[in-house]
């Protein structure tokens, strides 16, 4: 086991009576990464996280965290993990500082150490002002911070957050995301979500899960490149349709094109090249030569949403088999 891998999962399968939640997944996470677990509800994200946090056993397969097996060395793993479950359950009757201190002590920190750590994480998560408030009286955004502070309090190597921004308002989502980004400086973070933009914004690697399987695992950048492999170019040009059609037909580099009217005399052309070629200079050259007005020229940008829809499309499963 190499030391740079913090999570190594091999052939992990989890079956509940009658259905398979996770089916033979294999992945690994390097120290210092922020990895996003992406998938529709019921894809098996939470189950995988619960197994990694040693809450549930797997049916088969192995999982290691920081080199420790999650089944046989659960205690060592739990000490190294900060886990925030879905919906962030907290003891609502406790005060913030009291709760964090209680959690720190449970996680095996000494009295002095837990006192010091609680102050640090409260500062880090912006909880110092509410340290004496009862958790049940706090807003959802603050409660989420309490959950994060709890996950951090024992200085874990790995932080696992299950849907950390669910049910928050946009402002709270932003602040929680910023917090997660800040954490990533000295921790490895694994977060799950079904909100695509969230992964796009916070993570540097994505695992796309669907029906218990990992369908894609790559950096967000790479996934986008793979998708735009077609290299489709969008050009908005002010010219008659006939002229445009003639021009594109005569260009050997264009495999396929599509022209749609835009406002005024502009037309929106979607041009797909024959090979992985960049069409943009050629299109610009044509427009310049013919004296057309060109107001937009861009390579189609695929958001993670497109990738996600593309990958989890039902007919793709047949393709991959």
């Amino acid at each position, binding site marked *: 086991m190499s030391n740079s891998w913090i999570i190594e999962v091999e052939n992990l399968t989890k079956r509940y009576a009658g259905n398979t939640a996770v089916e033979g997944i294999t992945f690994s996470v390097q120290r210092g990464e922020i990895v996003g677990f992406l998938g529709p509800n019921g894809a098996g994200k939470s189950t995988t996280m619960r197994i990694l946090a040693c809450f549930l056993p797997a049916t088969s397969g192995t999982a290691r965290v920081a080199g420790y097996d999650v089944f046989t060395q659960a*205690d060592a793993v739990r000490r190294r993990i900060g886990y925030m*479950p879905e919906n962030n359950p907290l003891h609502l009757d406790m005060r913030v500082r009291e709760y964090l201190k209680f959690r720190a*002590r449970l996680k095996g920190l000494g009295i002095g150490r837990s006192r010091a750590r609680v102050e640090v994480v409260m500062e880090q998560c912006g909880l110092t002002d509410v340290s004496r408030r009862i958790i049940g009286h706090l807003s959802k955004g603050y409660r989420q911070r309490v959950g994060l502070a709890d996950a951090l309090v024992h200085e874990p190597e790995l932080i696992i957050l299950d849907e950390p921004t669910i049910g928050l308002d946009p402002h709270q989502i932003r602040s929680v995301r910023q917090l997660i980004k800040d954490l990533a400086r000295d921790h490895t973070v694994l977060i799950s979500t079904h909100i695509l933009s969230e992964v796009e914004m916070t993570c540097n690697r994505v695992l796309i899960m669907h029906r218990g399987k990992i369908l894609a695992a790559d950096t967000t950048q790479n996934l986008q490149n793979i998708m735009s492999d077609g290299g489709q170019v969008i050009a908005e040009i002010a010219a008659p349709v006939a002229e445009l059609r003639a021009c594109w037909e005569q260009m050997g580099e264009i495999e396929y094109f599509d022209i749609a009217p835009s406002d005024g005399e502009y037309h929106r052309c979607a041009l797909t090249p024959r090979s992985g070629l960049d069409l943009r200079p050629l299109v610009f050259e044509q427009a310049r030569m013919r004296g057309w007005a060109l107001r937009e020229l861009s390579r189609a940008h695929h958001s993670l949403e497109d990738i996600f829809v593309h990958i989890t499309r039902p007919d793709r499963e047949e393709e991959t088999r």
Partner: protein
Amino acid sequence: MRAYLTLVRRELGTFFVSMTGYAIIASVLLLLGLSFTDMLAKLNDDPHGAQAPMTEWFYSTLYFWLILLLTAPVITMRSFAFEKWSGTYETLMTTPVSDWQVVLAKFTGTLLFYILAWLPLFGCIAVVRYFTLEPTIVDPWTTASTFFGIVLFGCLYISMGCFASALTRSQIIAAMNSFVIGLGLFLLSLRQLVPVPSADWAAKVFSYISLSEHMEDFARGFVDTRHVVFYVSLTVFFLFLTLKVVESRRWK
């Protein structure tokens, strides 16, 4: 050990951060008070001029048993069921604490609260001691042995309550289950309900499991090791079952 003590403190603390703990203590006090007045009436009516220790009178009142049978289900119902329901069970079980630490801490915390709720009994006894002309009826040894019996009884009923609570996510169901198990065990010792069979061995068994006979002995200042073994072994048995229920999430 550190985690265990932290959990015990938390468990005991839950009763006092909300009204529940105070409400339970208040109702125990009320029942104890009723039991006390009942006992005083009986003492005054006694033609033989109260020779027996007063704790014996205490144990024979209805309210006394009501407290014993009702408190345990009420104070144990939330122990596991509420944590499962609110989801904090998951955060608890993903910290580096072992299952037996959790079970034992919940048991100990609840038991400490139970003992706390019973402490006013000493107040009642002190009142009698202060005003009585017969010092024999208030004997420190019988008082201690009665309290010891009450604590043993509590151990058993609280371990049953923890077991019932670990089985479900609903506090109501937990309370009902533990009350029914507890009541069932208690009713076995009622002569009016269960006629003692003629067979010698059966009569022995019934007298061995008779909770009221145990309490009678304790109230007389009689600490029988058979009774102690009965309570301790059953407590250990139910705690063991609770531990298995907690572990059972790994079998699924």
